[in-house]
């Protein structure tokens, strides 16, 4: 800048000085002296300017270096997965570079760093060849077996001295203080292209902190039968109603519904056997199921169950063996579902269970049930919230109570019992849900049996659950129990407070509706 401005000033000053000298032609000597002086001063100026130019040039070079350092590096060479080589290479990019994209192409339309193969030439090889693929579709890859672990711990405080008389389920809290009644290991995976297998092994700590375990479920089922058919074999939950078929970690309350515990049993109705299911070819969802199981032991509570201490409903039980088909327990079920609106769904079912029981030589039990489930979830729910779930089940049981072993009991009776529960759960804010449940079981009065399991009962429960994530939850529940009087037992009412803590590890357990 300085340099450019100074040039015209310099020239002007020379011209002016020449004119001045022209007016004084007298002294040549003086002129010569002046010229010499001028030459010298010009030289001085030139030297000075050259130095300045050099400095500026140097500065520019430095600046350019700095700018070059600031610039982002040229786009890195993204790794390209080589296509599987043919038997003998038919091209060599090291020698013949691939054709450059046309100059008009400003924005890249391919990206080998995310898409392995050229999308314009789809190869059937992209779809995995039929064969053994570990795990189920959508599940985590890289393992033949999905493993998950779930542990439920409950702290209980109840007005009842013996919580085990109040809580009907085996996974329910059974004592005041702390309980670990359901520590569960669940395994599942594809057996081969034809079967898949699953197992639920439950570890429990009893009231004396002794460990026990049960094979809650362990079964295989077909995956490729035609016509919507599926066969299942092993130890499994009987397809009766809704609550019976779900594991405790899916429950919306800490304890099992009264009607489930008192009619299907503390462990739920389950056993070794087989099941055939058929999804009917209808425009709406409808599935028919029939299960045939042993119906024997504590997990077949109302059936061939020898009972605690060898008595059931006061009768000394007969250990009836399986002599024929009619000694097994049969459970047919029909279920259907409709979407009322895109955000509301209903699932309804009817079930029945038939089989002999151990209170007589030819005594039988029949249980009938209906279940209804409704769920609302808006189309823009965040992480599954908010929602409203309403679930109800009702059961009727006809129990032929015989006179027991060696006709030791004074009389045979037929009990017509019924019960129901209804519960509403409202997920009001992400991770939070409140629930309200009403339970009622009406057991036929008996003037001969003083068994406390024949007491009619009410229960009202309310709970608040917080899910820090889908893999953990904290639940606070309050129960008010009313036990009606019988000919032998007085009425009573009890209050209980439970705090549950649950953790889940391992494979992401997918859930049925």
């Amino acid at each position, binding site marked *: 800048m300085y340099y450019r401005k100074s040039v015209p000033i310099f020239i002007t000053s020379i011209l002016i000085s020449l004119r001045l000298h022209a007016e004084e032609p007298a002294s040549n000597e003086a002129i010569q002296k002046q010229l010499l002086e001028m030459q010298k001063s010009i030289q001085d100026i030139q030297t000075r300017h050259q130095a300045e130019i050099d400095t500026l040039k140097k500065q520019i070079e430095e600046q350019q270096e700095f700018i070059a350092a600031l610039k982002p590096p040229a786009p890195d060479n993204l790794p390209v997965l080589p296509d599987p080589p043919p038997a003998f290479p038919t091209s060599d990019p090291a020698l013949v570079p691939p054709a450059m994209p046309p100059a008009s192409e400003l924005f890249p*339309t391919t990206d080998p760093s995310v898409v392995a193969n050229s999308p314009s030439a789809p190869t059937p090889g992209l*779809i995995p060849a039929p064969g053994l693929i570990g795990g189920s579709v959508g599940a985590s890859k890289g393992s033949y077996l999905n493993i998950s672990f779930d542990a439920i711990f409950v702290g209980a405080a109840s007005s009842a001295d013996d919580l085990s008389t109040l809580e009907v389920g085996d996974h329910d809290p059974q004592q005041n203080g702390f309980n670990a009644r359901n520590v569960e290991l669940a395994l599942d995976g594809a057996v081969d292209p034809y079967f898949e297998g699953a197992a639920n092994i439950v570890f429990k700590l009893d009231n004396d902190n002794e460990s026990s375990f049960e094979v809650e479920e362990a079964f295989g089922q077909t995956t490729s039968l035609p016509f919507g058919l599926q066969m299942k074999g092993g130890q499994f939950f009987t397809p009766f109603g809704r609550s019976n078929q779900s594991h405790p970690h899916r429950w919306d309350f800490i304890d099992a519904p009264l009607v489930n515990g008192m009619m299907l049993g503390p462990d739920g109705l389950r056993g070794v056997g087989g099941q055939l299911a058929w999804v009917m070819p209808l425009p709406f969802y409808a599935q028919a199921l029939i299960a045939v199981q042993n119906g024997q032991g504590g997990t077949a509570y109302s059936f061939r169950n020898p009972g605690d201490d060898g008595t059931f409903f006061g009768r000394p039980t007969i250990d009836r063996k399986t002599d024929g088909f009619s000694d097994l327990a049969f459970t047919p079920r029909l279920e259907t579902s409709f979407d009322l609106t895109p955000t509301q769904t209903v699932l309804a079912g009817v079930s029945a269970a038939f089989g002999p029981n151990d209170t007589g030589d030819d005594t039988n039990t029949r249980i009938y049930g209906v279940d209804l489930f409704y769920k609302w979830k808006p189309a823009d729910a965040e992480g599954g919230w908010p929602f409203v779930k309403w679930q109800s089940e009702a059961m009727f049981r006809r129990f032929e109570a015989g006179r027991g072993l060696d006709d030791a009991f004074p009389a045979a009776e037929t009990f017509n019992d019924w019960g129901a529960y209804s519960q509403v759960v409202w997920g009001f804010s992400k991770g939070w849900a409140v629930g309200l449940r009403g339970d009622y079981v009406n057991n036929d009065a008996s003037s001969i049996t003083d068994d406390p399991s024949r007491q009619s009962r009410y229960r009202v429960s309310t709970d608040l659950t917080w899910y820090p994530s889908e893999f953990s939850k904290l639940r606070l529940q309050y129960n008010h129990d009313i036990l009606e009087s019988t000919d032998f037992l007085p009425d009573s009412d009890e209050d209980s407070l439970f705090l549950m803590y649950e953790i889940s590890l391992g494979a992401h357990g997918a859930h049925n509706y």
Partner: protein
Amino acid sequence: MKSRIIILLAALVCTAHAKLNVVTTLPDYAALAREIGGYKVDVTAMAKPTEDPHFVDARPSFIVKLRAADVLIEGGAELESGWLPPLLQTARNPKLAPGAPGLVQASDGIRLLEVPATLSRAGGDVHASGNPHFMVDPIIAKAVAAHIVTAFATADPANAAFYQANGREFGTTIDAKLQEWGRALLPYRGLQLAAYHDDWLYFARRFGFEISVFLEPKPGVPPSPAHLAAVISLIKEKHIKAILVEPFHNRKTAEKVASSTGAKVVDMAQYPEALPDTATYVQLIDVLVARVSAALKN
């Protein structure tokens, strides 16, 4: 008269069978399936466009759809693992069995980003196979379209040429559109953005943004007040102008952050039809590009 009815019935049955039954887990795959299958396919998407794809209920009505499906298009990257397996188990459709040509796993052959080096849920709801929200990268969408073409051509060989032509057309459209989208977003290359959930990684990578701040402290974990305070100071520090949210995210949280930082909440969506005028995949990306560039303009 009788024979006429029989012919009519036969015709009805034939037309009912003429169309390929396609079920997709998510609406973006459905949009691509319609693009490629045209009038020769019936497409049903299970998840709703505005729904959180991680938490779709396994409604039994889907079993009916899956039972009749010739082709199922799913992500194959664990996004649907919480609800798809029990549906397939009950649908018992051999055409959709693992390895069967009717089962399209969209992520096949795609190198997913953010594959965790170690698996731990302490990091939130991290997917073992990588970030599954890949469809908003148009280059990946082309690759998924190629899978769909292959599946349709295998399931319905008579119309293979039709599907292949549509697939090529889709590819050409995307290539042309990429120039347009690339130009529109070119002025904003290198800018940093904020997002509610880590689901814009592929979009950002394609168009040269960086999503450097997330409202969720970890994937799937709801924002805590302490984390939001940190987010606000980060947004101010990095001069971030836009916070990307989806229809199922808590917009109020994003608005709160926006109001205390001056950033704008940009309503985005991964799925066609979640936003107005986004019936097709191309329209969706058009709208996303327009919304992002509008937010960054000032």
